[in-house]
């Protein structure tokens, strides 16, 4: 299959995206891949697959590679006398800002480029953890109780310690800390506010059971991955998650009952339907006293959570064949014509 991997982006997770793309190059060796890098200034570059190494980008060598722009239905490389179009399905692999906040989704929809990834609405609800809570309330899915703090308004928290503090709008554990007593609160807030002007505070539950489940919709059916129980020292910090992406062996299935698997799948499907079509997402759940709580939605999981799928390549092909189309309104000037003819002109 032909697939274009779009990665990078002006995001705190820019470097993770590069690692993700390099991992997928290895995982999808049976695909015909094109790599398009978006740098922090929003320029697009066509990356020679043999140069898909982290240092290519840290050293700025990508700047010597062909510049791309967008046109209807394709990325295009303009030459002096001719231009080359890249029309393959795009895999949006930009984590964090740009990729997951709806910017790239809007851009690709606007130019009618087919892509794997969350659409604008799905991005809005999953990127900001405050809105994810609203979504869950509306879809009748449990989440932990929480409080929201803003950088410019002083407010005390009422939850009892320990609590976990997260910037509202980031993944990958950046800016996240566990606070065990009040003396640790200020620094944790300053750390989170470096990344976002609002933060979400939740109770931190020691040794909580955590399960990850990925999946996507194709042929009007959700295709699930295995359920993973992530190994964690308290919680995955930035470095751990980063290392996690590049792991190559498949993880072991969580040792849980079929009943619980079904519960997790039901919750997943409720979140996914009528919002995430076109995307392969990973939902991270907590299970407390047999009840399932949604922790977060990763609409573009690190290296697409490939390690959770038994046959990742075929899964991606299946998804690529069932992408939603952005509907474009047809403008036919009927109204203006009718007025014009009524006036006899």
């Amino acid at each position, binding site marked *: 299959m032909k697939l274009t991997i779009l990665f990078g982006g002006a995001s705190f997770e820019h470097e993770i995206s590069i690692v993700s793309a390099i991992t997928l190059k290895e995982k999808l060796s049976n695909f015909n891949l094109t790599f398009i890098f978006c740098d922090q200034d929003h320029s697009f570059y066509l990356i020679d697959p043999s140069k898909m190494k982290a240092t290519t980008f840290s050293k700025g060598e990508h700047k010597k590679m062909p510049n791309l722009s967008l046109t209807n239905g394709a990325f295009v490389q303009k030459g002096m006398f001719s231009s080359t179009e890249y029309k393959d399905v795009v895999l949006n692999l930009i984590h964090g800002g740009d990729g997951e906040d709806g910017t790239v989704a809007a851009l690709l929809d606007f130019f009618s480029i087919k892509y794997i990834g969350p659409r604008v609405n799905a991005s809005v609800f999953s990127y900001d953890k405050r809105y994810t809570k609203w979504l869950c309330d509306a879809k009748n899915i449990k989440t932990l109780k929480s409080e929201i703090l803003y950088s410019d308004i002083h407010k005390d928290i009422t939850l009892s310690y320990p609590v976990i503090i997260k910037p509202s709008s980031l993944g990958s554990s950046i800016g996240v800390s566990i606070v065990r007593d009040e*003396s*640790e609160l*200020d*620094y944790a807030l*300053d*750390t989170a*506010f*470096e990344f976002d002007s609002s933060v979400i505070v939740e109770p931190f539950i020691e040794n909580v059971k955590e399960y990850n489940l990925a999946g996507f919709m194709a042929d009007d059916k959700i295709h699930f991955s295995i359920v993973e129980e992530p190994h964690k020292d308290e919680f995955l910090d930035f470095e751990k998650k980063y290392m996690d992406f590049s792991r190559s062996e498949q993880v072991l299935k969580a040792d849980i009952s079929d009943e619980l698997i079904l519960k997790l799948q039901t919750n997943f499907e409720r979140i996914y339907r009528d919002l995430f079509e076109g995307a392969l997402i990973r939902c991270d759940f907590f299970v407390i006293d047999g009840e399932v709580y949604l922790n977060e939605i990763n609409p573009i999981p690190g290296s697409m959570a490939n390690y959770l799928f038994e046959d990742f390549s075929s899964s991606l092909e299946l998804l690529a064949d069932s992408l939603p189309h952005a509907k474009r309104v047809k403008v036919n000037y009927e109204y203006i014509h009718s007025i014009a003819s009524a006036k006899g002109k």
Partner: protein
Amino acid sequence: MAKRSVVYNQNRLDISYEILNPHAKRDIVFLHGWGSNKNLMKQSFAPFLGDFRHIYIDLPGFGASGSDLVLYTKDYAEIIDLFLTDINSSKDIILGHSFGGKVATLLNPKMLVLVSSAGIYVPKPLGIKLKILSFKVLKNLGLSKFRSLFVADDAKSLSESMYQTFKNVVDEDFSDKFRSYDGKALLFWGRDDTATPLHSAKSIDTLIKDSTLKVYDGDHYFFMKYAEDISKNIEQTFLKILGK
């Protein structure tokens, strides 16, 4: 890393900082030199001084702390003072490298650690004087566009406000400030330092009443290699102060 804003003269400044060993009872604050940032200090000192809460700060206009204000060294000191009060830090030990040494001195900590500190005026070599003179002639002739050929390396990539700040702080004489510091001071220097030469260390050592100078092999950045030994000296000296 973390960020906290302080309001100084009606201006809001975002200070980027990082804390290590958050539960330690005594504080050591690290202030970097001109053109540097907190990461350089952290790289060197993070593994040591485990009984202290380390506070690494990006001075306004450097690292991740933005600023478009034109400042003097005393402004830097007042801003950092406000910041330290805000995060409930006691000024037990403040370590300053180069320009950070001047800021550290003004903050008047219990114990002052000066690492290749600036603050003693070093007359410009004749070559530089001629360079400045010839630029002034060109400027009067309306040829100031050649400025980049004359500006010091330290100042080349600076914004206009930081360039003004640079000019404000670069040639200050801090002899009086060193003289009036009355706590314990440790001075660490690199023998082959050309930015803040060893003779300025000797001057500072004479000016400060209770100071000790230790000289190492190396240049202006010698401390990156000798952070462990410097840290041991700091610990031992601080224990003595506490014992008094």
